[in-house]
């Protein structure tokens, strides 16, 4: 059996809720197929408080082997580096996370808060991710941390983490595969493409048919704050709940898989200079982009300009 311990720290439980949406295989089939034994999950387990304390003690002592530690939520270090804004039995949770990470064969950060700190990085809570604080390597465990398998913390970014990403990462690790990671230790299978890929508004984007308001069909990148072309993630490949994605449903991508999330400027506006976004898709030359988009807008067919093409 493969043992798994799931810890929740400074988060909303959304990664757990997202994971419960698993389909083909569903959560229970996945555990069953992979031979995963869930030692503990705060929302799903019934261990009594004393049994839970005993379990944690045996994990700390190494008497109970721990194959996979999943951490959900940011590591809270405030106030004044004590971690007392988030405690278990009066002790800061961050210390327990560090101890268990030292025992685990693999460590997974479920969601952007656990990976990079997410929501709490700017506030009172002095939050950090397990091995990064935003873009900066280090975090709780330090940049040189490696789990017993020799791998760093596997960062399954997203707010929340997509259920298929979690299921896929567990499948790979249990099968002894080594996922290829990007510079932020996110598996390239899911973070090697932009959120923009697969968006049903792509034709509108291509010809720069842009929207200034909600409930329209055009592209949300130029004025509405969409980060789809700027950040990496599989939202429009895997789709959510097997059905759709935010950008398809007219909600700008807020870049929640990025180490920078939440970005410090307003979510529903695109920062721009004379109508051209300040941030352009990775690796693009600004001058070429201006020419390209100018020509594309001039070439836009009427069916797009009239918003006739469905999304």
């Amino acid at each position, binding site marked *: 059996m493969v043992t798994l311990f799931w810890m*929740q720290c*400074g*988060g*909303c*439980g*959304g990664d*757990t*809720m*997202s994971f*419960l949406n698993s*389909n083909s295989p*569903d959560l*229970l089939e996945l*555990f069953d197929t992979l031979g995963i034994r869930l030692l503990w999950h*705060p*929302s799903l*387990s*019934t*261990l*009594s*408080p*004393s049994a839970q304390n005993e379990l944690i003690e045996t994990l700390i002592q190494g008497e109970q082997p721990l194959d996979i530690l999943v951490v959900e939520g940011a590591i809270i270090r405030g*106030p004044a580096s004590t971690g*007392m*804004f*988030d*405690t*278990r*039995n*009066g002790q800061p949770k961050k210390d327990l996370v560090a101890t268990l990470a030292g025992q685990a064969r693999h460590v997974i950060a479920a969601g952007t808060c656990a990976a990079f700190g997410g*929501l*709490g990085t*700017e506030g*009172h*809570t002095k939050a950090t991710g397990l091995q990064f604080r935003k873009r900066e390597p280090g975090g709780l465990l330090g940049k040189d941390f490696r789990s017993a398998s020799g791998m760093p913390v596997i960062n399954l970014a997203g*707010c*929340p983490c997509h259920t298929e990403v979690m299921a896929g990462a567990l499948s790979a690790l249990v099968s002894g595969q080594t996922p290829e990671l990007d510079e932020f230790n996110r598996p390239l299978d899911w973070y090697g493409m932009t959120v923009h890929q697969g968006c049903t508004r792509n034709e509108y984007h291509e010809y720069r048919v842009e929207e200034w*308001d*909600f*409930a329209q069909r055009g592209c949300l990148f130029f004025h509405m704050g969409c980060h789809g072309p700027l950040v990496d993630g599989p*939202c429009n490949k895997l*789709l*959510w*709940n*097997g*059905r*759709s*994605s*935010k950008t*398809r*449903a*007219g*909600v700008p991508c*807020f870049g*929640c898989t990025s180490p920078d999330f*939440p970005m410090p*400027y*307003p*979510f*529903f506006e695109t920062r721009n200079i004379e109508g051209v976004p300040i941030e352009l898709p990775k690796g693009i030359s600004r001058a070429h982009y201006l020419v390209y988009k100018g020509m594309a807008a001039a070439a836009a067919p009427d069916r797009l300009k009239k918003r006739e093409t469905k999304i």
Partner: protein
Amino acid sequence: MAKKIIRDIPLNRVEGDLEIRVELENNRIVDAWSSGTMFRGIENILRGRGALDGLVITPRVCGICSTTHLMAAAKALDQIAAVSVPDNAVRLRNLTLMVEHCQSDVRHSVLMFLPDFAAPIYQAHPLYTEAVKRYAPLQGERCIDVVRQTKTILEIIAILGGQWPHSSFMVPGGVTYVPTMTELNQCRHILQHYRKWYEQTVLGCSLERWQAVRSATDLDAWLAEGASHRESDTGFFLRFAREAGLHALGQRHGCFLSYGSLDLPGDTAIVGAGEDKLLVAAGFVGKDGQPQRFDQAQVKEHVGFSWYTDYPGGRHPFEGETDPQATGAEGKKYSWAKAPRYLDQPAETGPLAERIVGGDPLFCDLLRRDGANLVIRQLARMTRPATLFPAMETWVDEMIARHDQPYYTAVPPLVEGRGFGLIEAARGALGHWVEIKDGKISHYQIVTPTAWNGSPRDSEGVRGPWEEALIGTAIKDIDNPVEAGHVVRSFDACLVCTVHVVGPGRIPVRC
């Protein structure tokens, strides 16, 4: 002299973390302190951000009710924009919020509340073997079925709003997307599938049969009527609880609060509660049992026992601050949750409060007969979806019939103003109080249902609802205090919300 002991009880299977400190005398709880052990400071993160940014940040308060926070945030901005939201947008918003409730109520009941019946402490209970077969965590037949089915209804939110959890498809003036007819038809199919499953397994009868249960006597007759009633989750819960004597637990407080929820579209076949044009009535029922109109100006938050900079008495959320202060006075302050009060009184909120405020005949009768115990509180939650499905179906049908009508009214940029969004979350009254200055958020306070229910003492030293409800509870095994867990879980504790919401405050409870 009786021996007094004090124990900390961490509770799991709640959303978030909660620790309860109890004082026991002869194995009976004589005092209780509910402690939110996490501070996330969400409200402070919002200050200075763009006027609409609450639509993105506040859903992240809570993974199980993100659509609910989105709704409260959007309604506060609607008010600031002084915009009238088109009927179709009202229908779409309502439908998605109700979908989230139907998911949450069933997941809470079967994955979080009922697994306690499979705990070893009930080995002598005649239904114990059956309880294990049904509700053992992630192995019981009903748990497996609920994991597989509850995700299906959430597909409706993904179709209409992009994803669940954590989308931001409600905006001031309406919603971001005009669904196609095909998509609305899909929503109808998903809804029918879930309703049928809910009727067959959770309820054990048709909605129509359940709606005919209008008194405590009717409920007894319903339970005796047939095997499908007895074998459903609702029937099993009632039988197990009766045998275990759970009606005696979780009493001792008497105020109920509902902010009211689910605005009726201007043109709809659905009839609302009272004169407010709401599907779920607003109101307050005090200890005298008399219903009163709800007035948001009477909501105040106290911090006398919460880890925040002190101020005397209570403050309205527009005047409230969230300034964490965890040093000093440790003997007195014990929670990151603030203590909300209505007319200076603590109040229970949630599905039971909604039914009492709305004058539901069954629950008013059960309250008269048995008091506000944990069984009727949990029954109100398990059966709430039955009160929602008819309006959900009607509103999908009305969107299909009026498909050419708008889903959004353009709103100019929000520069100045203040507004509130008050709704009923799955767990009860949720409010966002928002102020915009110079196009930026200058003030944001969230008061969550768990802040109400899991409140610490107020400035006058008065306990919060579940602190009070714990008093008198007998605990068989202090190392596994299942009874205290029942009481707190009957309120459907959501500490992640409290944390965020209250500014600071997340309460971990494990049992």
